[in-house]
Every structure is written in C-alpha cells, then in structure tokens.
C-alpha cells in the first residue's frame, strides 16, 4: 500500500464530527424510524409497535455516530449527514403525501 499524503489522511476534527454524528445522526435515525413506523410491517397502529420503534432509534443513531469519524473532514461529515437527512425526510414526506 502506498503511503498516504497528509492531504489524503482523515483529519481528527473531533468536535465537528462528534457534533455531526450526534445531532444529525439523531435526526436521521428519526427519519428512518418514521418511515418504518408508518409504512413498515403492521402500519402505524400495530400493538406495541411504538415500543419497537422507540427501541430502534438508538442503534441507528449510535451506529451513524460511530462511523462519522470516517469522514475525511468535519465539514464533509456535516454536509454528507445533512444530505442523508434531507433525502430520508423527503422520502418520508413524499410517502405520507402519496398515501
């Protein structure tokens, strides 16, 4: 493997990446859970599904947070995660509008 130049290496940017993963990862997890809650198996009213949904928020959130440090820079982490959020919420609101 070739040695990476300083440019190619991922930057630490601890605060920005942690912020991006913690806040945007949190909102992203809600978007995924929201889609599942309305359109996943059983629909919005299934017995005890609310509890299942609540349980699903934290693993998605924490996984996004864990892998946020793989972005090369903090700014990139914010841009990417923001776009993921916009996509996920667009899908959600589109599906709500269609149904």
């Amino acid at each position: 493997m070739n040695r990476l130049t300083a440019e190619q290496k991922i930057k630490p940017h601890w605060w920005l990446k942690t912020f991006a993963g913690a806040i945007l990862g949190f909102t992203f997890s809600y978007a995924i859970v929201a889609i599942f809650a309305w359109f996943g198996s059983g629909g919005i009213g299934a017995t005890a599904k609310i509890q299942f949904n609540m349980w699903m928020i934290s693993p998605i959130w924490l996984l996004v947070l864990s892998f946020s440090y793989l972005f090369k820079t903090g700014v990139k982490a914010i841009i990417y995660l923001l776009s993921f959020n916009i996509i996920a919420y667009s899908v959600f609101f589109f599906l709500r509008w269609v149904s």
Partner: protein
Amino acid sequence: MRIRGDILRTYQSIHTWTGIVAGLVLFIGFYAGSLTMFEEEITQWATPPSHQLAQISVEQLDDLILKASATYEKAQQGFKINFNEHSSPMTWYEQGGGRSLSLDDVMMHASLSEQGELITNAEPANELGNLIDMLHRTAGIAGKLGHEDLGVLVLGIASALYFLALVSGIIFLLPTLVKSFFALRKNKGVNRFWLDSHNLVGIASLPFHLIIAWSVVVFAFHDVFYDGLSLVYADKPMFERSDTPQIEYSIDQLPSISTYLRKVDELTDGYHAQSMAFSGLSSSRPSVGITVINHQEMMRNNTGDFIYMHPYTFDVSFSSIPMNEEQYYVSYVASFFSLHFGGMGGDIGRWVYFVMGLLGAFLFYSGNLLWLEKRRQKQPIQSKSNRFMANLTVGVCLGSMLAVVATLLSSKWLYLINAHINNAYITCYYLVFFAALIYSFFHGAAKSAIYIQKTLFIACLCIPITTLLAIAIPSFGEWTSTNSTNFIVDIVALVFAGIFYFSAFKTKQRAYHGERNSIWAL
C-alpha cells in the same frame, strides 16, 4: 484484514478516551448487574426466615383474602399472593409500597393457622436486592434530575460512549484479530497478557456487550425518544387509551384465586403463576399483575413474564406475552428486555449472565490498566495523571466491590442489633466505599490494591462463617430455620473469597517482583 493506518489511529483514540471516561461507572454497573441476576434470592437470603409465614393450599387462599380484608383496611385495596413455598402466602404494605424504592416500608405477612385462623406479622421490608439493583442502575450516584435518577442518566451517557468504544475497539482490532484472537501470550510480558485477555473477553462476548450498551441507552432516555416520536405520530395515538369505566367494584366481588390460575392456563402455553399483585380493588380502576414463569420460553425478565388484567372482568390490559398471532411486536420488544435481563435459559441462563456481567466488569478494569501501562514512563515515579487514574481505578472498582461484600456481611449482624435495616445497608455501603477510595489515594494504588483485595477475601470468608454462627447460636434467634437454597449465596461468597485471595497474592507478587519502573511497584 488491512485497514488504513489513519483510520486505525482515529479509532484507537476514540476507544481509549471513551473507555477511560465511561469505564469506572460501567464497572460498577456490570458487577452489580451480575448480582441482580439473583436479586430475589439475595433478598430472600437477607430476610430472616421467621418473617415468612407458612404457605397454604390454593383453595385456602380465598378464605385468607376474605379474613385479611375484613380485618385490615389496607388489604381491601391491594395485596400480593405468593405461590413460592418459602414466602408468606399473602403480603401487603401497611406503610409505603408503590413502585419507587423506599426504606421504611412495613410489610404485612398473612397466613392461616392450622385451625384456619388469620395470623399476621408486620415486618420492615428487606430491600437488599432492590438496593443492589439501584446500585446497578445508578452506579451509586445519588440525586435526581427531574423525575429521573441522575445516576441512570449518567450511565445512559456512559453507555453511549461504551457503544462507541465497542465499535472502535473492533475496528482497530480487525487487522490482528485472526492472528491473535485465541493467543494468550504469557511469555511476552505482563502487558501483553492483559491486552490479550482484554481482547479475548471483549470479542467473545461482543453480542452481549452490544445488547447491553443499546438497552441501557434506551432505559435511560426512553422519555426523550418517546417525546421525539410524538412528532412522528402526529395526531395518531401512541398508546391505546382505555375509557374511564364507571363501575365501582369492591373486594367481596373478587373471583376465587383458582379462577385466575385457570385463566392463565387458557391464555398462555406452559406458563404457571408465580405471584399475583392486586391493586385498586375497591375503586373504578382495579388491576391485577400476574407474574408467570416458563423456563422453556424467552421471558421478559429473569423473574418471569407478566400479564396485567382487570381482576373482575379478566380483560387483559397489558402483557409481555403476545395474546395472538398479530402481536409480534410484543414478542420482539419482550426479547430486547429479555436479552438485557437474562430471561432465557432458566437458571443456567442466569448463571451465564452472571459470569458475562463479571467478565464485562473485567473488561473495564483491564482497559484502565492497559491505559496506565501505555502511558508508563521508564522511571520509578510515574506521572501525576497516571498515579491519579491508578488510585481512582483501584479505589472505585475494588472499593465498590468491598462495600457490597461488607453490606452483605453486615446484614445478619444488623438484624442482631435491631438496626433500621435498609438505612443501615446504605450507610454501610457508602462508608466502606469512601473509606476504600480515600485509603487508595492516601496509600497509592499499588499498596491499596493488595490490601483491599485481602480485605475482600476476609469479608467474603466471613459471610458463610456468619451464616453458620447464626444457625449454630440460638441467641441469633431468627435464622435457625434457614432454607437450604439460601446457602448458595454463602457458597458463592466462599468461591469469591478464593478468587480474591489468589488475586491479592498475584498483585503482591507484581508489587515486589514485577517491573520496577511501574505504578504497581512497592
């Protein structure tokens, strides 16, 4: 497997810092959690057998309820029926009760004499098991934030960090994982051995750790998560709400206990009732919570599943067992709880979880030791931050264990001097914990690690000795009829006495014959 060096270094930093920040409170949460696998047994062990009244047959229970509720006003509202042979058939709280832990509850035990007369016995309820559970959930951090315990929230945050530590740990271990997974290199120096065992335990019990990290975050922040979900649900109701019923019931309309047992047979498959807790019996919102057990199933808690129903109409309001095919989310959610509480596999499952919890505690302790080793300098006196962390690790981890063992040991003696039992437990825990912590900062980690472990050995050894004394000497009075299952607590204490003796010996060897330029050298 090849991973880029910059990624490895990034995740190594994350692993190090999340671990060191969260490790100490998680250590307490884990080993105390191991003990909570046997929470009820510990309470049973600590309660003088004379508090429990003789069990009676199921047919007699209705007569007992009738007589007790006629005599005692509190029993008209609610009470608990126990089917366990070592517990009183009927109990209720004369004072206190309710969900939150309180130290001054007075529990009324009731049974029938052979002539069918009501016998009752009011005793302060022993909360030792609950207190250990409290320690498990809060790591001993007192105080409230809103209506939530501060310690629970601290452990919630620590658990999120722990999740990060797990993921980052796997990532930076991947390149060497295949090669050195089962390697426990003893001949490559002490550090290598600690590192190898840290990795082995971490990887081998990884699913368990991921489940625990996830569920603790959920337990700590479920209110926040539900608040967020209320936006998602918009105008849809999140929880089914029942209409306020108009009918006032009273206890003389109560169906017989055997009716409920038949109902449990109807509703479930292979479960049997362990206890039934009635509440609000003379009101418009009566309820009965039936704890049911089936060791063949994945139960929600290690203590069983539950069914809540209306005691007069048998309408099931909530259950941790799905009542029909469409309720699959009920069993998913119950299985998440079960995976945290070790509700599967019966007693073997509980012992497995007990061991896994202790291994988890070992993971945090060894992690801290590795952090210290990594920052070690080639000089007899180590840096101030290193010494501080070593003192803190020894003081908190070993001190907390010593405090719990001392509390268990004190139990029978506290009954002997008629102490206010639950308050005395708490005083004992914090007194010993802070004494050990101060001692370790005063004398340094190396010396205190040896002496606290020796004290642990002696304290553990004294637990079965106290039990034997209590049975042998009649002036202890209350303990002569101790049932044999209680001895398991004493046997486990004896095993741990052995473990602490061995580890104190090894620690001493390291102090006198180990690496000289170390925080552990004496």
